């Protein structure tokens, strides 16, 4: 029991930190809802995992990866907005997932179940998180420059389309491991809310990225710990913890403006 608690807290910290860091870019791209909706695309993959008795999170991971690549390609060809494509993909995936997922597993898929976390899950979460944060750090400045001006970025030799694809794939990986804690419906929270909380208190990129990681880690840790203590599902508790942090940053931001 103690071992499960330690493992689940470990997973939550890794997932929270990496989701917060990657989410900080998603929020700047004005794609907060994309981060949220993208997570739902994992549902059919989870369902196939449950049906065919392999790790459902591998299925979810594969679905997210392939969907992100397809959406990226269709967006480049059709110039339809990224948000619209993700919205179409997410509703399709949700519809398909709900039809094929076994009813007994539906709640776990939608809202997560960290009580079943294994040592393999914890190791996978740690490895994926570290790699995702490391690779995102390499492309972070390039993506920020492209947000400021795509022409500026391209004139500096940055392949914006490929960098975006890599970023989307990394988001998919982090979302896939996050599903274990908070489920497909709520994992988008970890990508979005720590970052917008950090934005309230940041005037530079370093502070913004650092605070996004810290708030993500704290939200996930407090949520999982309180869920274990109160015997409640972890997903909603992570959301409540994060929202408290977000509310505090709004008040702090308001106070800072008053004293500025």
């Amino acid at each position, binding site marked *: 029991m103690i071992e499960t608690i330690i493992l689940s807290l470990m997973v939550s910290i890794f997932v929270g930190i990496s989701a917060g860091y990657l989410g900080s870019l998603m929020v700047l791209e004005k794609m907060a809802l994309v981060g949220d909706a993208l997570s739902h695309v994992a549902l059919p993959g989870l369902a196939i995992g449950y049906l065919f008795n392999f790790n459902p999170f591998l299925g979810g991971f594969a679905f997210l990866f392939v969907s992100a690549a397809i959406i990226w390609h269709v967006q480049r060809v059709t110039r339809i907005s990224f948000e619209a494509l993700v919205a179409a993909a997410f509703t399709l995936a949700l519809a398909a997932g709900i039809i094929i997922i076994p009813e007994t597993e539906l709640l776990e898929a939608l809202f997560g179940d960290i009580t079943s976390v294994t040592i393999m899950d914890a190791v996978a979460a740690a490895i994926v998180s570290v790699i995702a944060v490391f690779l995102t750090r390499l492309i972070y400045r390039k993506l920020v420059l492209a947000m400021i*001006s795509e022409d500026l970025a391209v004139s500096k030799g940055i392949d914006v389309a490929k960098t975006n694809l890599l970023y989307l794939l990394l988001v998919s990986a982090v979302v896939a491991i996050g599903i274990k804690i908070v489920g497909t419906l709520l994992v988008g929270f970890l990508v979005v809310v720590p970052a917008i909380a950090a934005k309230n208190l940041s005037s530079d*990129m370093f502070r913004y990225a650092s605070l996004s990681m810290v708030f993500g880690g704290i939200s996930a840790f407090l949520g999982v710990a309180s869920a274990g203590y109160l015997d409640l599902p972890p997903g909603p508790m992570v959301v409540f913890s994060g929202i408290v942090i977000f509310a505090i940053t709004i008040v702090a931001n308001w106070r800072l403006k008053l004293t500025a």
Partner: protein
Amino acid sequence: MEYILEVADLAVQPQNQPLLDHISFKVGKGTTLAILGPNGAGKSVLFRALLGLLPHTGTIKWTEKVKIGYVPQNVSVSDIPISVKEFLTIENAKNDPEDMLRLVKLDSEKVLKKRLGFLSGGELRRVLIAWALINEPNVLLLDEPTNGVDVGSEEPIFLMLDGIRKARKMTILLITHDIHIVQEYSDFLLAINKCITYFGKSEEIAKLETQRAIYGEPVCVETMERKED
């Protein structure tokens, strides 16, 4: 004259929509070329083609190893928490950001840690110019470098740019709508409206026939007098 850029029969026609056609001109080393034309004339498209960002036909030949600094017309900075220092060093920078801010006549102590989105229009344009200069380019492409700057603050920016150009022996290509700026701060003028409507010395802009060639009819005299005040 020694030329740094030779463009011959350049055309940009994505999906058979002509954005630029039959564009041929040369730019002398160390000179300033002003590019003038109405909205939608293809001025920014020309810059993007010169930067190699757009597929095109014809030839664009930079005649020596050029290093280009570029200031785009529009940037979106309001929503991004990035400080001036972080922006100036977002790439590996050859020069110290504080020195660059001093070069563009900004108070580095006041501005360096400020969020980019909180700068005034004039400060932002100067920071963008500092960014374009930080890796010591020999050519500057400036797409309306005073976009978003109030009228009174425009001229000091061009004065500063002219000083830097002379000191560093740079070549400048400058998109502007301002005839006064063309006259005062450029050596040659390229007027385009998808094709070239005028190419020659900037001082010729004062002549009625040049203005007819560019605008189809002369620019209102009153407007010109007010701008020259």
